[in-house]
């Protein structure tokens, strides 16, 4: 597999691995049957009661999957860390792939999954905090495993 150096770096030394015990939101994407599974945990720092301005204070993930899946999760976690929820909701798979200096075409779905799993975690947080209105606008994971 021709992975970029960035991918190999994030694969070999993934950032933000782990779980958060009392997470504000948890999101999972993928399915071991398909060979890829990612779970993200987030702690959210609220701001002015406006969920859009709230920030990701802490982020952790676990991944079962190929090199790209692990690198994508690691990179996505770094990118989301400290960002507002709106910013993260606006993130696309291409942003992650781009930050990784590209991914092989067959691996672009991993890139998607990383962003979607974090968005699932935000959705979970918004739902728990009563903001179904915003939560329902987030697409998240096509067939999320909860």
């Amino acid at each position, binding site marked *: 597999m021709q992975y970029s150096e960035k991918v190999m770096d994030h694969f070999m030394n*993934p950032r933000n691995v782990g779980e958060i015990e009392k997470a504000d939101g948890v999101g999972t994407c993928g399915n071991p*049957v*398909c*060979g890829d599974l990612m779970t993200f945990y987030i702690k959210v720092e609220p701001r002015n009661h406006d969920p859009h301005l709230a920030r990701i204070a802490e982020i952790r993930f676990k991944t079962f999957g190929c090199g790209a899946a692990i690198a994508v999760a690691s990179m996505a976690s770094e990118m989301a860390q400290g960002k507002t929820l709106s910013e993260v909701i606006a993130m696309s798979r291409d942003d992650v792939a781009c930050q990784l200096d590209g991914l092989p075409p067959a*691996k672009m779905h991993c890139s998607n999954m990383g962003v979607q799993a974090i968005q699932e975690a935000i959705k979970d947080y918004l739902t728990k905090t009563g903001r179904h209105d915003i939560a329902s606008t987030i697409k998240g994971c096509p067939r999320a495993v909860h």
Partner: protein
Amino acid sequence: MKNGARQIYLDNNATTPVDPRVFETMRPYFSEIAGNPSSIHSAGQQARRAIEEARARTAALLGCRVEEIYFTSGGTESNNITIKGTALAQDKRKKIIASAIEHHAVLEPCIYLRRFGFELVKIPVDQHGTVDLDSLGRALDDNALLVSVMHANNEVGTIQPIQEISKLAHQHGALFHTDAVQTAGKIPVDVQAMGIDMLSLSGHKFYGPKGAGALFARRGIRFDPLVHGGHHERNKRAGTENVPGIAGLGKACEIAASDMAEEELRIRGLRDRLWQGIQGAITEIRLNGHPDQRLSGTLNFSVRYVEGESMLLKLDQEQICASSGSACTSGSLEPSHVLLAMGLPHDLAHGSLRFSLGRFNTEADIDRVIEVLPSIVDQLRAISPLYKK
């Protein structure tokens, strides 16, 4: 790359390095004895002799007549000639029977033939990857043209009961072909004793060159060429012969014939050492393939909670080359059709690892894997959402 260690190559079922003796046999045919074997001058005739010597060596390995050997560009081509060639050379029988765990080089030509009115019947295998003879018996009838069952499987190494299968095929007047790409040169193949009508082999799987293979076709069997256009290979495979490749293939056959028994034992010893070491150090793994009816160099197992490609990448960082049946290694969505046909759940199929040993592996190679793999599995399990200590 770490500490500049030398590469440990444990992917010999994928391809093998050319044996230095094979390379020396090939070398003169690139630039010195470079004639076209069809030419009548000495430069051509010297090349012709190299081919005929290789043919004799290949025939000797299989126990057949020299004129029953056709040189091809590899195992895939030999499989294609067999399947499309026998099918299209007749219009009586329309059913081709193959095991569910055949290589794509057998299955895909069968699928292509559908548009010409042929039917592919896949025979299931048991949990060890052994073909179910009852199902085979049921599938056979007088519409069955060809039964194609590989001698041993490339992913899990399971060796099939070829003699029984060929007997069944012949009882119904079907031809029997075996894809012996993984066995030729590694374990004995005797086309007479085993009742084989056609057989495919490939040089690069047993220390010969890539791009050279052979087809054995019993005298009298009718098949169309796949590549038309000249009198080469007794009208069955056109194109200027790959003289160095063929000479190398012949040499690989000769070496194999003489060293096979000893080599097989040595490799089996290494493989068993590897499996013991791994079993002692990693929990929740399971062997894939037949416990003993299995190629001596093949060790395929599944590691629970971890995906195959990520293990391969970490092994590669330690300069260890191996393989996996994970979908992620092939760019497809489904993991290995072989593992699935053996009844493995998807997650175990995604988590498979294959070490395939060969002529140039040493104990030190094995010990290095035993040293390195457990911590790789630990690292990946530590980040796996499926793993709970």
